[in-house]
């Protein structure tokens, strides 16, 4: 029971972080058709920039400044990199971002070293909020919850209630139509790419000290973000949200299940000491998202809530 409560709590937080990361990618992927391999690298960049800004000033400045900086980097990448490759088609774009992820990883290692940096939770939030089943619950996690919820509302407001949001929504579902309505499509693309990257950066700022800020953080997050976007479906932020929560909960709760395959499929004659029988659900947890990815692409290519096939 306790495990379940904790798994749920953490699952929600992890899911929200995932959503923060993947909402940007969903926007980019739906409008531009670019499955940005470097998206998680922007997440990492956000964490590292926040670490540096925090050293000089404070966490609160980093919380605002770092995502903005990451967004600007994203815009430059779109303007001078992606746009150039665009004419050669989606494969070239994908490969460009693939190489970009590589480059950002290396640059981060040059600037911040190869080991983890000491990126701390701000002192103001570094206290246990309450005790649950004998374990203290850090206040910072609840702070993450609030930031994520705030971002969710802000994004919703931006998309549903502002003119810019309406254009973006139109572009999400009908990427080819917006240009013919006289909007400056390259500018929209650049902005959306920048905003998407900034969201990833924000996730990095608040996720970097929740987890560990090291050069491997991008590689670890990268594939999961794809899973969220694909499972959620093209053009659907709601889908991305549902998928992110689903994967967040799935991954955190599956690891607390001790049952092995033999326990489940024992009735089929699977012995508990065979190599397959010994595999536990917990050890399969990290694989579940990829299984989901493959299954969704085969069975329901439009994702959970997408409006068109990928």
């Amino acid at each position: 029971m306790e495990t379940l409560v904790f798994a749920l709590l953490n699952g929600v937080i992890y899911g929200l972080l995932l959503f923060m990361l993947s909402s940007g990618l969903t926007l980019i992927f739906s409008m531009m058709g670019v499955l940005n391999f470097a998206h998680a690298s922007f997440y990492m960049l956000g964490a590292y920039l926040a670490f540096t800004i925090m050293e000089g000033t404070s966490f609160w400045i980093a919380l605002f400044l770092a995502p903005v900086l990451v967004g600007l980097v994203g815009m430059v990448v779109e303007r001078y990199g992606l746009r150039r490759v665009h004419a050669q088609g989606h494969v070239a774009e994908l490969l460009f971002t693939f190489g970009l992820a590589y480059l950002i990883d290396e640059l981060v290692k040059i600037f911040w070293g190869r080991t983890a940096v000491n990126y701390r939770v701000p002192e103001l939030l570094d206290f246990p909020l309450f005790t649950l089943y004998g374990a203290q619950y850090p206040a910072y996690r609840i702070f993450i919850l609030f930031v994520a919820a705030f971002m969710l509302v802000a994004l919703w407001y931006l998309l549903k209630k502002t003119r810019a949001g309406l254009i973006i929504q139109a572009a999400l579902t009908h990427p080819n139509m917006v240009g013919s309505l006289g909007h400056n499509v390259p500018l929209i693309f650049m902005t959306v790419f920048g905003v998407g990257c900034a969201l990833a950066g924000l996730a990095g700022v608040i996720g970097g000290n929740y987890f560990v800020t090291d050069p491997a953080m991008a590689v670890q997050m990268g594939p999961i973000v794809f899973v969220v976007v694909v499972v959620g479906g093209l053009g659907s932020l709601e889908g991305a949200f549902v998928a992110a929560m689903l994967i967040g909960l799935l991954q955190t709760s599956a690891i607390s299940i001790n049952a092995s395959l033999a326990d489940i499929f024992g009735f089929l004659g699977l012995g508990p000491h065979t190599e397959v029988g010994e595999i536990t659900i917990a050890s399969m947890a990290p694989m579940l998202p990829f299984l989901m990815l493959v299954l969704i692409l085969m069975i329901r290519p439009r994702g959970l809530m997408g409006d068109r096939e990928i």
Partner: protein
Amino acid sequence: MTDMTATYAGLEPTRAEKFRQRTVPLILFALVLLVIPLFNPSRSMITLLNHMGITIVFALSYNMLLGRAGLLSFGHAVYMGLGGYFAVHVMNWVAEGTGFWGAVPIFSMPAFGFGAGALAGAIIGWPSCRRSGTPFAMISLGVAELVAAAGFMFDSLFGGEMGVSADRMAGPEFLGLSLGPVDEVYWFIAFWTFIGVLGTYAFTRTPLGKLSEATRDNAERVQFVGYNPQRVRYLVFIFAGAFAGMAGGMSAVQDEIFTPESLSLVPSGAILIATYVGGIRYFTGPIMGAIVMTYMGSNLSDYTVGWLLYLGLMFVGVVMFLPNGIAGIVYGTADTLRAGRLGEVWQSWLLRLAGLVLIAVSVITIIEVAFRWSDGYGEVFEPFGLSLATTNPLTWILGVLPLVLGVVLVLKAAKGESK
């Protein structure tokens, strides 16, 4: 009919042309393979050459997907890995030497890898090849993650972290090769590399090979000339898996070990980069890419700790500015020379070359100085006796000025050519 066949004969390459364009390069390739040992290369050189041979076959198999069928895979190493693993197991059965296996020469391992790769391709390809484009790429990514995870789960098949090793000197000798010393392994690799090149090339000349290109260009239209594009993709996928498995079999004999990392995304990404940098539009592109990238992967790290960054820059540079890769430059240059247009373009070429050299000077300066600064041992980059410390203004001049100048020159060259 006769007059028309006559006209058509002009359309199809003549026997002499076929010989010149197809047979001669293969003969030359075989000659190169035969001549290399005459230069008495060191054992590490041979080891490197052997790895190049393996990567050539692997890259060619990858290009059957990416270049010829338009299928971007992020998990091609799965097939090389499974083929290689099977070969390693077979080698161990051979070493036990009972029954049938006692008579199998180690020399034949790539054939076993070929079979295992084909089987893996046939099983995994069945669900994957129903989609193309981005979904295919994503499925390959998911499958690669799953297979790599399985590699660490099933120790009896994959040997856990330490992998499975074998002895290439087991079993009966073939062609008098004990396969002990690396120079004997060279002949083994040379033979199978040639078979791999020949096989993948022959594949492009078959109806299926042509259909794979047609499917890449226009999958929909293929349906209306009586073919199922999913089926085409599936069959091509099996062959790509088979040749990757063959490379795995070669690698099993060369390195005598396979570990679960060989199934992971890392080698898959590496072969993607090698193939693309080589040039996916040309048959020979992946060969060039494999040679260059294998060399750089093993030797660049001797010169600089920043080699990964250089590789990354090179890859991004190729994607942005040279979509046809190294082969694109080679053939483009050759075409210009053959057409006798050197006179028209030599100025802009020279300009561009100078610009690129200048850019390289800056980029190398910046990267090398940055890495030393990052290490923090107070070490100084000293090319040609210059001492480029971060405090030295020359460092900054060298880091910026040639870059600006180089970009200007390259832009000028591009402008001149577009006129």
